[in-house]
């Protein structure tokens, strides 16, 4: 018999460290609703000035790929090195590519 989970719903926390940068997954928090999830995320994950903005998403709303699908999903990319932009000659003087 499985033990009943009486904890609050789980939320995934994403933090943007600087304006313009992508949000990165920081971890998760338990919270009864979205406002509290945001506050808990702020308290738990931004204590050392890690962020300028936070997203919280109910973990249930995240669709994840199945580890069993790993071969079919990701292995075909392994022998297609031409998909990496490494076969171009860098123009002279272009520094920030």
């Amino acid at each position, binding site marked *: 018999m499985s033990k009943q989970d009486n904890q*609050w719903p789980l939320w995934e926390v994403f933090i943007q460290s600087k304006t313009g940068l992508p949000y990165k997954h920081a971890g998760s*928090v*338990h*919270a*009864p609703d979205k*406002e*509290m999830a945001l*506050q*808990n995320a*702020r*308290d*738990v994950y931004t*204590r050392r000035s890690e962020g300028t903005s936070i997203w919280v998403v109910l973990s249930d709303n995240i669709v994840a790929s199945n580890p069993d699908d790993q071969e079919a999903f990701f292995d075909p990319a392994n022998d297609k090195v031409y998909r990496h932009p490494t076969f171009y000659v860098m123009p002279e003087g272009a520094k920030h590519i």
Partner: protein
Amino acid sequence: MDTKEALFKYCLRLADNNLVLGHRLSELCSNGPILEEDIATTNIALDLIGQARHLYQYAAEVEGKGRTEDDLAYKRAEREFYNTLLSEQPNGDFAVTIARQFFIDVFDYYFYKELLNSKDERLKELAARAIKEVTYHLRHSTQWILRLGDGTEESHKRLQTAVDGLWMYTGELFEMNEVDEILIKEGIAPNLNDIKTKWESKVSEVLAESTITKPEDGWMQTGSRKGMHSEHLGYILAEMQYLQRAYPDAQW
């Protein structure tokens, strides 16, 4: 009493409020109801103790007798502390912790907003720093008041009991004495009567939304402006000051 002495005592009062409440909240470190709230409460404790440090440093400078922030925190006796009785009340259950915090957060929010207009540059700087922290503290405690009050039958009952029990300590927040009179005249300190009006309106609004009945104003506890405290402060200081009392001037 001259302005300097008034300013010294005023800084002590503000610092003591923050230190004692910060200490109370620090007691919840590792004892919070859930991990997230444990960290939130500890963050708030650290904010308050940080504010206390700046105020003690300034108080020590104003006094000019060579005492340090540590001397002021660790080497004064109970009767020399001016923190409100509300700030020293025990954590109780979570509803008591939150009700105490909410009453003080609302006060601090309007107080520091007013202190931003102080003619004393240092207090003005302190207020500018504190207001950002306090704005979050108020948001945190308000959200909890709403959820506990308008939550389950049990949480509502507990919060109502907490609010009723602590109400008699709220009158003291707005007491003024000679210190205030002198500093208000100098444009350094805000008039607490103005803060009281705002405090009452905010507290009424949030309690109403949370379905908690606001208690009638009755007899109010008093004493801290004169250094008279409830029995709780002695225990707090005994724990907080133990090391400096047992090993004077011990260093890290």
